[in-house]
């Protein structure tokens, strides 16, 4: 845990069959940073983000999280993923579980494993675990104003509510970094704001965040660093001012001219 690096990516490559998507990416994400990733569709933004928690196995290079190369197949990825929250474009809430169950499931699963390891797995300790996770889950739900939806099923929520619950589900694991893959792209326009609001609060609390988004306003306001990806490489990397007001590469200029009206 030297020098505040949360994630360090070295020489990352990813291919799907013959499709060479990521062509050597090096990046460092330090504690508390808010990195926004921009780039045209198909440039490999999602693939890059999904390699950060090894939802996609990199075909080359390393992803060092808290000093451990999690791209190494011998590493127990599940343990590390518990500390890396991920928010998806399509929410991916568990359809067969209520809101509160969605949030509590993973912390309880992890907590029970821990109790078993400590040889302290009994009725009382299980009950205490459930109560503490429930309290934490309800507190988080309250913060996003959805405590009255605790017993609703995801199908009974609006898109914006689903995404806020998905963020809380990830937060309840107390992650060290949050990865967002176009969290507002599947939402109706009037619901984008409520999700961005939750993300801004999270940023203000000091969470380390990596966000793929097309919300340029959010990038300008929240990002400490903006990364522009194109054709599987990082084309440009800088502060929001450098990227938006002073783009250097032709590709970034042409990209910005298309997205900023």
């Amino acid at each position: 845990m030297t020098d505040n690096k949360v994630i360090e990516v070295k020489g990352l490559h990813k291919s799907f069959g013959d499709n060479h998507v990521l062509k050597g990416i090096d990046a460092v994400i330090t504690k508390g940073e808010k990195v926004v990733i921009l780039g045209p569709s198909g440039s490999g933004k999602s693939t890059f983000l999904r390699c950060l928690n090894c939802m996609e196995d990199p075909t080359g290079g390393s992803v060092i999280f808290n000093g451990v190369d999690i791209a190494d197949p011998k590493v127990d990825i599940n343990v590390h993923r518990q500390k890396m929250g991920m928010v998806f474009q399509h929410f991916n809430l568990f359809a067969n579980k209520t809101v509160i169950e969605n949030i509590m499931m993973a912390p309880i699963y992890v907590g029970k494993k821990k109790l078993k390891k400590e040889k302290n797995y009994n009725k009382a300790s299980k009950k205490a675990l459930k109560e503490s996770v429930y309290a934490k889950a309800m507190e988080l739900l309250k913060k996003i104003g959805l405590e009255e939806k605790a017993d609703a099923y995801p199908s009974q929520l609006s898109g914006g509510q689903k995404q806020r619950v998905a963020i809380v589900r990830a937060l309840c694991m107390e992650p060290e970094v949050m990865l967002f893959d176009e969290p507002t792209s599947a939402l109706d326009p009037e619901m984008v704001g409520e999700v961005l609001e939750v993300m801004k609060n999270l940023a203000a609390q000091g969470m380390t965040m990596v966000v793929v988004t097309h919300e340029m306003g959010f990038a300008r306001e929240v990002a400490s660093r903006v990364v522009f990806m194109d054709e599987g490489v990082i084309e440009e990397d800088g502060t929001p001012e450098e990227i938006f007001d002073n783009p250097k590469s032709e590709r970034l200029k042409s990209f910005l001219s298309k997205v900023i009206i």
Partner: protein
Amino acid sequence: MGNFSFRFETFWDILVNKGGYRDVITGLQNTMTIAVVGLLVGIVIGTLIATARVLPKYKRIVRMLDSVCKFYVGLFRGTPMVVQLLVFYYVLLPLMGLRFPSVVVAMIVFGLNSGAYISEIMRAGILSVDPGQLEGARSVGFSYSAAMIKVVIPQAIKNILPTLGNEFIALVKETSVVSFVGAMDLYLAFQRIGAGTYEFMIPYLAMAVIYIVVICLITIGIKIMERSLRKGDR
């Protein structure tokens, strides 16, 4: 019709006064236990096979496992249940030096057989669940198997419940072959009643009615279960 009422009286006499009902009850019990145990064993085997067959096929061991599963499914779907029953009872078990009661052998064979069918049903069910569900579960740190057990398979089962119900009904009906290995079932019970008087019309009619009633009841049960499982879709 006088003839009919005479036949009915004879049948009733054997069924009620001469203890024929005992065979019927035993037969019905056997039919239901064989079908239920067969279904449960089949769900376990079918889920294991289906899960093995939807694994990403990068590794050689997974592809080998897939071939073994395919062979198993092909074998059990490619032969009639009655043949499997006879082979198990008269060939495989004696060769292994084992002897089980015929009802137990029937449960095993029904489980193995329905496992093959249910694996195909379950595979379709698993594939019908949005891949995002598995991703969501993996992203919070569930292992592949925990994610499958807690999130994907419950949704798959909900999706395939009507088909699973049909499989159960098929199993109930197929129990009418277990008398081939000497187990009491509805067919054997009524066949014996008929054999007492060489009069089979009423006994077989009664057998048909019992099957229809049992299957109607099962169908209603499945409908109720489906409704209660549909909570998440409101």
